């Protein structure tokens, strides 16, 4: 309905291959980014930043990372939390042990360590497929849970096992207020989203998808499974690691291994599946859905209770949340197994064909 594509012809391949070939889409995305940079700070209050926006951004980043592995390369991983943890703890150690270490560098180095871990635990994927691999990745989850709990070196021998970072700053500017943190995360997310998109639409992305869709055919056209899969693990866990570092440094400030336990892994997997496998945009949708839903429920359920004059105990709320959450997940998988991204693209097609049927 909103699309006017006449005259939008392409006279070069570069123009034809850009991320948003349609002008209306480019405008839309620019407006969105502009809103995120200018609009949101004007509207959001502290709670919104701390409880929703910042977690959403960081989890989107992690989801993008996971989506590269699961959605694009077709390698199931249940160990994402662990790689976030590696990122967080590695960054922490660089940060506290090397004095004068800039935050960004520390975070990126965290990502690098996570990459290494990812590659090591990705090696089995060369022989193992599907559910077997999924369970194998749990090994990483439990191993790192344990390691960061029991091996004090990682926690800089902090007595409580809890680690914390303070006074983050970027080029001398302090990142303490929620707004600063928001921008910090937003920056990371935008940059990495772009880089990730470039990768998946480049030839490495095609190699990943080829492995995912038909690995024999892929090898016959000369794609090396080793390289394709491990590079996916590497890129994926790098991004995930960075997200982990952000989660620790920016969102939590002080944390313990439980922050990255298996539930986190599942949560992220939900995000990519409900958001849409093999879609960068889907990662954002999924993150929004999964991270906002519980908050939404925790707000709505008591209200509902009061409506019927019942005061709902916190325990009951917690349980109802679990139920509704689980129920919605199932419902979603049944109605749209391909996730929100699919719904989005269908909607877009409808708009382009309007008023004709899809």
């Amino acid at each position, binding site marked *: 309905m909103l699309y006017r594509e006449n005259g939008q012809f392409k006279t*070069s*391949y*570069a123009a*034809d*291959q850009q991320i948003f070939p349609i002008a209306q889409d480019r405008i839309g995305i620019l407006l969105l980014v502009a809103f995120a940079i200018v609009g949101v700070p004007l509207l959001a209050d502290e709670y919104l930043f701390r409880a929703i926006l910042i977690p959403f951004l960081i989890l989107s980043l992690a989801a993008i990372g996971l989506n590269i592995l699961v959605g694009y390369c077709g390698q199931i991983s249940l160990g994402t939390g662990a790689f976030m943890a590696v990122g967080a703890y590695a960054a922490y150690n660089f940060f506290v042990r090397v004095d004068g270490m800039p935050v960004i560098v520390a975070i990126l180095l965290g990502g690098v360590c996570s990459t290494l871990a990812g590659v090591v635990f990705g090696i089995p994927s060369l022989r193992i497929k599907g559910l077997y691999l999924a369970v194998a990745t749990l090994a990483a989850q439990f191993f790192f849970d344990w390691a960061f709990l029991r091996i004090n070196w990682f926690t800089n021998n902090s007595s409580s096992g809890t680690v914390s970072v303070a006074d983050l700053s970027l080029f001398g500017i302090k990142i303490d207020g929620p707004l600063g943190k928001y921008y910090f995360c937003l920056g990371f997310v935008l940059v990495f989203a772009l*880089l*990730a998109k*470039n*990768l998946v639409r*480049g*030839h*490495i992305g*095609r*190699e990943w*998808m*080829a492995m*995912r*869709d*038909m690995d*024999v*055919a*892929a*090898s*016959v*056209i*000369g*794609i*090396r499974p080793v390289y394709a899969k491990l*590079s996916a693990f590497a*890129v994926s866990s790098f991004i995930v690691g960075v997200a982990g570092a952000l989660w620790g440094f920016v969102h939590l400030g002080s944390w313990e291994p439980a922050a990255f336990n298996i539930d986190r892994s599942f949560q992220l997997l939900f995000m990519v599946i409900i958001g849409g496998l*093999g879609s960068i945009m889907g990662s954002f949708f999924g993150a929004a859905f999964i991270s906002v839903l519980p908050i939404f429920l925790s707000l709505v359920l008591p209200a509902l209770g009061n409506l019927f004059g019942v005061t709902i105990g916190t325990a009951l709320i917690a349980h109802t949340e679990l139920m509704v959450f689980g129920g919605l997940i199932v419902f979603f998988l049944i109605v749209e197994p391909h996730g929100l991204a699919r719904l989005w693209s269908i909607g877009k097609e409808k708009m382009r064909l309007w008023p004709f049927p899809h």
Partner: protein
Amino acid sequence: MAEHSNPSTPERGSNKVILDVNNISLSFGGVKALTDISFNVREHEIRAIIGPNGAGKSSMLNCINGVYTPQQGSITFRGQTFSHMSPRQVAEMGVARTFQNLALFKGMNVIDNIMSGRNLKMKSNLFLQALRIGPAAREEAEHREFVEHIIDFLEIQAFRKTPVGRLPYGLQKRVDLGRALAMEPSVLLLDEPMAGMNVEEKQDMCRFVLEVNEEFATTIVLIEHDMSVVMDISDRVVVLDYGKKIGDGTPDEVRQNPEVISAYLGTSH
């Protein structure tokens, strides 16, 4: 068209052997798929492998391009002899193939499927790709142009951005061929390129195969069920039956071969 693309024009099938299969035997856990198969392929010829279902035709191709490793035997390609090669090595030596039951990348559109055939030729590293600057961007554009030539050649311009899953079967077969052509192969293995096609689709595919063979001087090894097609376009034919070679020669010779007749021509069709 027909009279100009006569398969047995003199310069075809110059007697130089490009691919030589020596005593290949292959079995899956006791089940013998191929027994002591030998045949050769000459530069620029169209070589057909025929045989009833389960004769081991596809297995033969899988051995040639390294998907399966035969227990015995070796394959000589351009004078180099190998007893085992990884599919990657085979691809690098310029052998491409299409698949009997479509093996397209369902999640991608036509362009990307064919583009994926160019991956061996795309060199820019991860970082350049992530930033999509300089060489990476240039590379994408250059190879896209090459791919567009294939799309043009296969006459699928109207579908270049359609997800392959949505294409009719006949067109998917073309894309499959396109992906193989994108590798600029010197030897092209076709696994039943015309299976399950209607008459026009078969004619088109025949045309493409012949044109590939002529325009790009590509050597073609083809498995096909449709005898008329095989006898029409191939220079020499190998006949397999239960994993054994029972005939080898020009279409006419094979037609005469009594063993072949009883095993194949007589029974099927």
